[in-house]
């Protein structure tokens, strides 16, 4: 309805400079929201279903009698609850999300639309293969793109995320050694590696040994040489590595690794820096996972789902897990099981992997094409170097020279300010930005790892750098409270993680158990 304002003052008369606290705790558009357990009714439902015309009397004592304890909300309440919650999140669609090693890039909506086509979303993994030829063709196309971009002869699509891909790769490596009756015990991993690398190696039954790093932030060849031996199953590297640097000696590393009878696993989480410009196969890699949710833009979704296909060398290809797609005269076939006598290490999970992510990643690759993907790498690297150049004057970088897709700083420049990396990050939140990755990689003290990605415009990067520089000046000027108390302008102030861990409260519990009338 209309607002009659004629002749009425619409300009605030008394300008009160500090906002009076509201009476009900309201904060304008920002809504505080209780848990569904505090809102919902035990009888309420937001789904209309017809009464069944047969009961469950045949199930006798198998029937669940006691209340389950699930609150329900009508549709309007449900929508409002989750819309309110959503507004308490930062997102790539809101501003720069410079988490180093995470490749938070734009997520095209075209991909969301295509993944939801009934022909992709409403098909069952086990319906007759004659009725899913388009899906199998799509998987085959994705495999072709991944193999061509990496130069590798084979790919296992089914791993469900990067860590799952690491698992897949190391399982293939272990199977390869076992096939030769060669039970190796150690896997070499740099200290700078992401936590999933050592965790995966240990999961696969290997002892993890750390490789030293040079002053230039790369693998120390001599140390690697010294550690290589007949019981080393694999060397696990990340390239570009987690310091944002390219492992110059990769080809040499591969040669020595192979000479020792070991395989070279490459963590491909940072593939965005080189996609379309460098093929891992040309670096001597035996296995590499690709986080489709990083390089190929499938949304992170607040923590997944992702997808981690693994490309494999000739040597490892025979050990790839089922299922796989092959093309014959009568169309595409999906092999659910490794045939008799195959060397495949078996199966990683039920069904055929993250189909929904495949569609998105393929749509992204086709949109960019061979030319665009190389441009992606170039712009990602350029953006990172621009950040490094703009901030380098104030912040201290542990390693000189150009970086690849991410710029790494340490906290030496904060010495004596009383401001820790964490405080600095929280203050960035007040300025409207998501902090960079902190305290990783472990090889750098108080690390701050900044990855803008290629989908950030120069203007946004400048806005970010201006904010960082302004905060840096404040820190050096001794304006410590701004940092220690931060954030002040976020939906919540700083959260007490220590208390959360001391006595974990991991679920809602009713004051007294809900009295539910089981119907």
């Amino acid at each position: 309805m209309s607002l009659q304002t004629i002749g009425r003052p619409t300009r605030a008369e008394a300008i009160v400079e500090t906002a009076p606290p509201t009476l009900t705790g309201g904060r304008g558009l920002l809504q505080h929201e209780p848990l569904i357990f505090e809102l919902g009714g035990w009888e309420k439902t937001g789904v209309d279903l017809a009464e069944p015309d047969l009961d469950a009397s045949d199930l006798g004592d198998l029937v669940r009698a006691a209340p389950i304890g699930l609150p329900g909300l009508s549709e309007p309440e449900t929508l409002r609850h989750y819309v309110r919650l959503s507004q308490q999140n930062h997102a790539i669609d809101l501003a720069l999300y410079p988490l180093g090693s995470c490749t938070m890039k734009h997520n095209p909506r075209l991909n969301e639309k295509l993944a939801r086509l009934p022909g992709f979303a409403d098909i069952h993994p086990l319906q007759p293969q004659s009725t899913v030829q388009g899906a199998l063709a799509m998987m085959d196309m994705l495999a072709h793109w991944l193999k061509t971009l990496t130069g590798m002869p084979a790919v296992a699509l089914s791993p469900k995320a990067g860590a799952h891909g690491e698992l897949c790769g190391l399982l293939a490596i272990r199977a390869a050694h076992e096939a030769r009756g060669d039970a190796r015990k150690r896997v070499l991993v740099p200290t700078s590696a992401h936590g999933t690398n050592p965790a995966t190696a240990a999961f696969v039954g290997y002892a993890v040994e750390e490789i030293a790093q040079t002053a230039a932030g790369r693998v120390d060849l001599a140390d690697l040489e010294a550690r290589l031996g007949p019981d080393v199953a694999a060397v696990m590297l990340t390239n570009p590595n987690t310091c944002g640097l390219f492992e110059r000696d990769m080809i040499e590393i591969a040669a020595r690794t192979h000479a020792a009878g070991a395989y070279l696993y490459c963590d491909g989480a940072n593939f965005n820096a080189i996609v379309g410009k460098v093929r891992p196969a040309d670096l001597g890699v035996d296995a590499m996972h690709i986080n489709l949710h990083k390089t190929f833009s499938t949304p992170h979704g607040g923590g997944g789902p992702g997808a981690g296909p693994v490309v494999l060398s000739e040597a490892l290809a025979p050990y790839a897990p089922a299922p796989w797609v092959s093309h014959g005269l009568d169309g595409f076939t999906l092999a659910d099981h490794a045939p008799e006598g195959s060397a495949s290490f078996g199966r990683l999970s039920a069904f055929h992997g993250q189909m929904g992510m495949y569609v998105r990643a393929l749509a992204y690759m086709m949109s960019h094409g061979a030319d665009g993907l190389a441009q992606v790498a170039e712009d990602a690297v350029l953006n990172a170097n621009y950040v490094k150049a703009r901030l380098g004057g104030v912040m201290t970088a542990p390693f000189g020279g150009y970086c690849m897709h991410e710029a790494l700083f340490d906290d030496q420049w904060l010495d004596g300010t009383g401001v820790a990396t964490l405080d600095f990050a929280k203050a960035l939140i007040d300025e409207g930005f998501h902090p960079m990755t902190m305290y990783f990689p472990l090889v750098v003290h108080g690390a701050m790892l900044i990855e803008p990605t290629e989908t950030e415009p120069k203007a946004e990067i400048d806005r970010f750098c201006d904010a960082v520089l302004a905060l840096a000046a404040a820190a050096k000027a001794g304006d410590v409270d701004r940092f220690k108390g931060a954030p002040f302008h976020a939906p919540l102030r700083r959260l007490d993680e220590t208390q959360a861990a001391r006595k974990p409260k991991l679920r809602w519990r009713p004051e007294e158990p809900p009295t539910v009338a089981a119907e």
Partner: protein
Amino acid sequence: MRYLPLTPDDRFAMLAVVGAPDIGALFTDVPDAARLSAPVDLPMHMGEIEVERALAGLAAKNRSGAQGPFFCGAGAYRHHVPSSVDHLIQRSEFLTSYTPYQPEIAQGTLQALFEFQSQVAALTGMEVANASMYDGSTAAAEAVMMAHRVTRRPKAVLSGGLHPQYADSIATLAHVAGVGVARQAAAVDGEAEVVAAIDAETACVVVQTPNVFGTASDLTRIAEAAHAAGALMIVVVTEAVSLGLLKSPGEMGADIVAAEGQSIGNALNFGGPYVGLFATRERFIRQAPGRLCGETVDADGKRGFVLTLSTREQHIRRDKATSNICTNSGLCALAFTIHMTLLGETGLRRLAAVNHAQARKLAAALAAIEGVEVLTPRFFNEIAVRLPQPAAWVVERLAGAGVIAGVPFSRLSPEAHLDDVLLLAATELTTDADIAALAKELSGVLA
């Protein structure tokens, strides 16, 4: 290039600030031998119109569930997902955010995860649940690893009712973890057999209800036997909706529940992404894999949520972590939570009742067909039948007639030699007309 904001001018200006003569200079660390001189051999960039034409063309080559009678189950179920669920999970703030490591600006995701954990714990009848696993099968494999850590015993007993692809996934991890797997022969009432196999070496028994043949059973006695022997009972559930009608694993003594959550809020997606539900007892929580969201307070004393107990996780504990999992199934978990919130206790029970009712009609219709034997004694929404012909052959024939008749057991486990067994599921989307059409076509094929 529509996704790339930098203009030629931007690049030029930025290179100047960087102090690099050209973009190539930034890649000098790459050995010449590995630097591509020309674009890789793939198509050049395409506009939305072309990409959409190409992929919609492939999608059109698949037969979607809505196109006719459809009875596939076997671990993935075709349920209705309310339109508001898919709308909400596409909100930028949920879709394009990262794992909530900065809780002050991630309360949306964190509170939803806390609600998810609470719902999963209630649904499974367990004390605590984690923030999701990749899917049900990997959750089951992790559960076995966890039982191995908890009991320090070398053997896992897998029931003959366990989904064969779940058993395969478990075997893969067990092998490298040095855990022996006692895998029982596929059997409609597989759970009945496991007790005998439990011994002092047993870390866990893995049982499923409803099992892969659709059989619903009371696992209480198995739990007692396992506990008596110092082993854990891991209960696998592949049809989460069944928990709206059937006794919960918790009520039957489960120590760990590994379930597939796809049925709530998530589409079939040809097998993924799905969402693994992982629930256990409070006292085992520090041995659990995956992320956990916990309640705390902020500097002003306001309630808030954070990821917690991360000392179990790879990014802190590295090679001593309880699992290597990092990215999980966040958005699928959100879809699960939103759908479950819409359903609530009342809606979930109603939904489960409707599924069971339709399955009973399905079973009756099939039992009435000459030569068809219904094998599943007590079921929720899925049954196994024995056919006078190889199930795979029958299914192909019916597909030709426009009916997707279910999953031949041979597709899951050729080595089980149950080629004449067909698995069929019914849900709230299965109409009486669908069942009639199936019966008609099946009778025709078998006649």
